[in-house]
C-alpha cells in the first residue's frame, strides 16, 4: 500500500510538473503545445485516481465496474480512430477553451500508442474478472502498461509473463547485450533502410491512379507487402532488442510470415501477439458462447462467424473505415475458406507423404498462393476508399 502510494505520488507529481510548464514562456520542450490549465489537469488526475482506486477495491465484488472501464477504453479508442468523431471532440475541447472551432481537426486529438495501451489495459481488466491477474504493485502495473520499447508498436506482452521478468534480478551480460544489440541493429536496418526505401514506391491512394503499367502496379503491391512487413517487424526487433538490454524478454511478433503455406499459418506468424490477444479475448469466448447455444449452430457457421467478426475487428483496430473493415473481412473469409478446404482434403494429404516432390510442389504453391492472397489484401489496407481499391483490383487483373 505504501509503495503504491509513493508510486502514485511520483506519477501525480510528474504530471503536475509538466502541467506547470504551461506558465513558462516560451512553450517548453516537453509538450508540443501549451498544456491545459492547471485546474483541468488536477481535475483529470483526481478523476483517474478515483477510477483506479475504485477499480482496485470494488472490482472483485462488482464485475460491472470492470466492464464499464473496458467500455470507457473502447469508447476512447473509437473516438481516436474515427476521424469525424475525433474532430467533433476536438471542436468540443476547443469551444470549452474559448478557441475557434473552425480550427478543429482530427489531428488535434492524438495519442501515440493508445491502441497498444488499450490492449494491455483490457487484458489486465479482463484477467482481473477471471481471476487470472497476479498481484501487482502500482509501479509494476504502470511499467507494464507503458513499457517504452513496446509502447508505440507492441509486441503486446501478457502481464503474467512480463512481471516475472520484471521481478527477476537482472544484470546485463555480454551475451544479452549482443543479442539485444543485434536485434536493435536488425530492426534499424529493417525499418530505416528496407521499409523506408520501399516506401518510396509502395502503393498508395495517389500513385494507384497514376500508374500506367500492369507490371509496375504489381511491383508496387509487392513493395507495399514487404514495406509493411519490414516496417512493423523492424519496430518489433528494436523493441525486443531494447527489452533484452533491460532484462525483459518481450514475445516475438513475426516469424517469416510470407513463407507460410496457408493463411492460418500466416496469421500464426504475423503480428502474433495481436492475433493471440483477439483469440483469447474475442474469438474463443465468442465461439464458446455459440457452441453453448441451445439452437445447435453448425460448426462451420460458428467458425465463419468467429473468424469473420474477429478479423473485421482486427481491421477496425487499425482505423475505423470501410477499407480496414473489408481488409479484415478479406482475411476472415480467407481463413474460413482455408479451414473448410483443410477439412475437405485432410484424407488426401497423407498420400503426399509417399511423393516428396509433389509435396514440395504443393507447399511451394501454397506459399505463393498465401503470399498473393495476403498481398492483394493489402490493396484494401493501403488505399483509402473501397472504390479506389476495387479499381486497383481491376487494373491488377487487366480488366480496365
Amino acid at each position, binding site marked *: 500500500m505504501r509503495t503504491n502510494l509513493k508510486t502514485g505520488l511520483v506519477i501525480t507529481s510528474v504530471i503536475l510538473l509538466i502541467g506547470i510548464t504551461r506558465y513558462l514562456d516560451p512553450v517548453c520542450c516537453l509538450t508540443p503545445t501549451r498544456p491545459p490549465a492547471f485546474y483541468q489537469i488536477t481535475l483529470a488526475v483526481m478523476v483517474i485516481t478515483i477510477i483506479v482506486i475504485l477499480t482496485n477495491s470494488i472490482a472483485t465484488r462488482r464485475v460491472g465496474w470492470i466492464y464499464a472501464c473496458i467500455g470507457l477504453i473502447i469508447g476512447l479508442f473509437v473516438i481516436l480512430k474515427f476521424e469525424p468523431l475525433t474532430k467533433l471532440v476536438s471542436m468540443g475541447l476547443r469551444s470549452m477553451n474559448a478557441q475557434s472551432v473552425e480550427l478543429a481537426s482530427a489531428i488535434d486529438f492524438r495519442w501515440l500508442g493508445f491502441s497498444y495501451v488499450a490492449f494491455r489495459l483490457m487484458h489486465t481488466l479482463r484477467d482481473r474478472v477471471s481471476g487470472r491477474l497476479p498481484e501487482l504493485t502500482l509501479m509494476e502495473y504502470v511499467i507494464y502498461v507503458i513499457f517504452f520499447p513496446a509502447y508505440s508498436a507492441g509486441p503486446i506482452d501478457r502481464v503474467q509473463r512480463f512481471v516475472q521478468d520484471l521481478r527477476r534480478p537482472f544484470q546485463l551480460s555480454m551475451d544479452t547485450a549482443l543479442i539485444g544489440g543485434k536485434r536493435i541493429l536488425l530492426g534499424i536496418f529493417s525499418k530505416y533502410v528496407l521499409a523506408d*526505401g520501399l516506401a518510396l*514506391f509502395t502503393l498508395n491512394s495517389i500513385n494507384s491512379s*497514376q500508374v500506367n503499367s500492369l507490371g*509496375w*502496379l504489381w511491383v508496387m503491391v509487392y513493395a507495399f507487402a514487404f514495406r509493411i512487413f519490414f516496417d512493423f517487424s523492424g519496430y518489433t526487433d528494436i523493441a525486443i532488442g531494447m527489452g533484452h538490454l533491460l532484462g525483459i524478454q518481450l514475445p516475438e511478433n513475426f516469424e517469416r510470415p510470407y513463407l507460410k503455406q496457408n493463411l492460418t499459418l500466416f496469421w500464426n506468424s504475423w503480428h502474433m501477439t495481436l492475433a493471440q490477444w483477439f483469440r483469447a479475448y474475442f474469438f474463443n469466448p465468442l465461439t464458446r458462447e455459440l457452441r453453448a447455444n441451445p439452437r445447435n449452430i453448425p460448426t462451420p457457421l460458428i467458425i465463419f462467424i468467429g473468424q469473420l467478426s474477429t478479423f473485421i475487428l482486427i481491421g477496425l483496430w487499425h482505423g475505423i473505415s470501410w477499407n480496414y473493415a473489408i481488409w479484415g473481412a478479406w482475411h476472415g473469409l480467407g481463413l474460413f475458406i482455408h479451414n473448410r478446404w483443410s477439412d475437405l482434403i485432410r484424407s488426401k494429404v497423407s498420400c503426399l507423404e509417399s511423393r516428396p516432390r509433389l509435396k514440395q510442389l504443393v507447399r511451394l504453391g501454397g506459399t505463393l498462393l498465401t503470399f498473393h492472397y495476403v498481398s492483394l489484401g493489402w490493396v484494401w489496407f493501403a488505399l483509402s476508399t473501397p472504390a479506389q481499391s476495387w479499381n486497383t483490383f481491376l487494373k491488377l487483373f487487366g480488366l480496365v
Partner: protein
Amino acid sequence: MTQDKTPDKISLKRVIIKGLLLFLLFDLLFAPLAPLPTLGQISAYNVIFPGRMRLPYGEHPDQAYNLSLYNLEAMFASHVLADIKKPLDEYRILIIGDSSVWGYLLKPENTLSGYINAANLKVSDGRLIRAYNLGYPTLSLAKDLLILNYAIRYQSDLIIWLVTLESFPAVKQLDSPIIQHNPSMMQDLISTYSLDLNLRDPRFEIPNFWDSTLVGERRALADILRLQLYGVMWSATGIDQYYPESYEPPQENLAIDESFHGLQPPNLNPADLSLDVLSAGINMVGNIPILYVNEPIYISHGENSDIRYNFFYPRWVYDQYRQLFAEICQTKNWHCLDEWDLVPPDEFTNSAIHMSPFGTQTLASELEQAILSLTNP
C-alpha cells in the same frame, strides 16, 4: 564467478572497440577515395528503368518521384541520353537552359524536346532529328555552361541554348546550388575559359575533410540511392514532377521599380552581364554549332507595364539587353534567334518565363524551322 565475468567484460570492450575502429576506418577512407562520382555512374536507369527525359530535379520528391541532387554523374546517368551509343541515323540536338526548357509544370512530351521529337524531322542526309532536354531549373548561364561541359561527351550535332536576361547578371552566376556544390568543376571552367567570375567566391561550398567522410557525405549518398528507388515510380507513372492543382499566374500589376539586380537606368553596361559565358560555350563545343535563343517572356499589360515588361524585367534594361544580344550575335557571327514576344501572355503558367504546352509548342515550331535551315542550308 570472477572467471565468468572477466572474459565477458574484455570481449564486450573488444567488440565495441573493433566495431568503432572499423567504422572509423571506413568513414575516414571515404574522404581520400571520394567514390561519389564513380557511384553516381552506377545507375538503374537505362538498365532496369527507362532513362529520364530530363535531368533530376524536384522540390516535392514524394509527389514528383524525383529529387534535386548535386551529383552530376548520377544526374546524367539517369538521363535517357546516357542510354545508348548514338545511332548512325540520328542527328542529335541537346537543348540547355533554365526551368522553361526543363519544362516546369509540363509533362515530358510537352517540353521543347518533346515537341521537336514528335515532329519527326529529318536533316538533308536523312538522319532523324532527336532532341534531348538538358534544361535545369535556376537562372544562370554559368550553370548552363556546367551542364554543357558534361553534355558534350554525348556526341551532339547541334546545341540549342535558350537564354533570358535573368540568367545574365554577373552577380548571380554562382547563385545556383548545383554550381555551389560542384565547386572544383566550376572553378576549372572559370580558369579554362578565363571567365570573369571569382575563383574563390564564398558561395562555393568547399568541403573540408570531415564533410568528405562517409558521415559528411551521407546525404549525397542517400540522394543517389533515392534517385534509383524513384526509378520505379518514374517507370510506373511517367511522372517526374509535382503538378499542383492550382498555381499563381505571372504578376500582372507591377511595382514602380526600374532597378534590375542593382542596375539603374538609363544605360546597361555590358560588363554587368556575363556575356563571356556565352563565348565560353562556343569555345567549349568546338565545331558543334550552337543556336542561341532569347526565350519568350510574359508581357504584362497591367499597372506600371509602361515601365516594366513583367516581374523580372524593367523595360529599359530588357530592351538594351535585346539590342546587345543582337549586336553580339551579328559581330561574332553566332546563330541566334530572338523570340522574346513570340508567345501571348495567356500561354504563360506560373512565371514570366514558364509557358503552357501551347506556348511551348509555338516556340518549338520556330525552333524546328531554325533547325531545318541550319541543317539543310
